[in-house]
């Protein structure tokens, strides 16, 4: 059974052609590191988001691999060139069948 959670994208809705835009992507996720123990001494298994990708009109323009050292409710801020109008799609994939998708539209003039 796939699980998912809230995500949030912050980026401009319009941009001048070939300008550089900043994108902030954050997902609600505990990012259980796999290094914590319960009170009775049992190891809590790892449960993290492992990859984040951004596609721009279906072309991958950014990818990140996350490991246990990424903080809970992971945030990533990166840039991309506003080449054309269209849809940016964001995908988070993680342990235990986790998957989350978000989208944003940009108008480039």
């Amino acid at each position, binding site marked *: 059974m796939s699980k998912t*959670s809230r995500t949030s994208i*912050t980026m401009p809705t319009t941009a001048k052609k070939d300008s550089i835009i900043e994108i902030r992507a954050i997902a*609600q996720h505990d990012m259980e590191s796999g290094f914590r123990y319960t009170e009775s001494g049992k190891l809590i298994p790892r449960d993290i988001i492992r990859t984040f990708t951004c596609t721009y009109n279906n072309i991958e323009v950014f990818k990140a691999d996350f490991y246990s050292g990424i903080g809970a409710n992971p945030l990533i801020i990166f840039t991309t060139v506003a080449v054309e109008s269209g849809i940016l799609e964001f995908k988070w994939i993680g342990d235990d069948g986790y998957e989350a998708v978000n989208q944003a539209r940009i108008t480039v003039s």
Partner: protein
Amino acid sequence: MNRLTTFSLGGIYLILVNLINIGMAEAAQTLQQSSYDLMSAENKAMQDDSSLNPAMFWVGDGETLWQQKLGPLNKSCNTCHGDAKKTMRGTATQFPKVIKGKLQTLEGQINQCRVSAQSAPALAYESKDLLALTAFIAFQSKGLPITVSENSVNAPFMKKGRQIFNERMGQLNLSCAQCHEDRAGLKLGGSLIPQGHPNAYPIYRLEWQTLGSLQRRLRNCMSGVRAQQFEYGSSEMAQLELFLMSRAKGLPLESPGVRP
């Protein structure tokens, strides 16, 4: 030096000392400080920018829950209270307050509504849903000053709360006041001791890596002095909250805040 000069000088000295003391006392009373001021620039930015504040996810969840129809009468919070942006504005700055003879915290009142108005089960303390609703409601008062003060109705509870604050507790035999009044601004280990105002709750505490309530934080304080922790939803918790909020009167609400 003759007697007249001595007395005059003595008199002038006493007047000056009293003026200085009055001035200092007044200054001390108005010198409330939110623990926001003690945070690093990065953590302040995390709180201030909703695109960076993880607590905003809970606010979003709360907004959804506000609309959720529950119980045999199929009622949501929205059914009675309408648009929270309007009806809940200022609400969080007034809690805890005495409602129908009982001292209620915001969480307590949410549960009271669920049980009596919606005929739905109460939400467990620190559950995702209760935190989300509390965060959503508190968020509607963001920036507004805390208005809780002593009045004839809450006086007996306020007295108890003040007592708890000033009473030594735990194996370390410390009172809240000893750290947060007498030693606020000094250091405990590597951290600065804050005045301990509850003006940002619920908070995304970095230590917890999640959102939590004031009562959770108070329980942390109590485990810090090795004291028996007050139970969630207990009357002692409500009394202490009441006193803390009145002590923070005037400070703007920062909810949902970020704290280390």
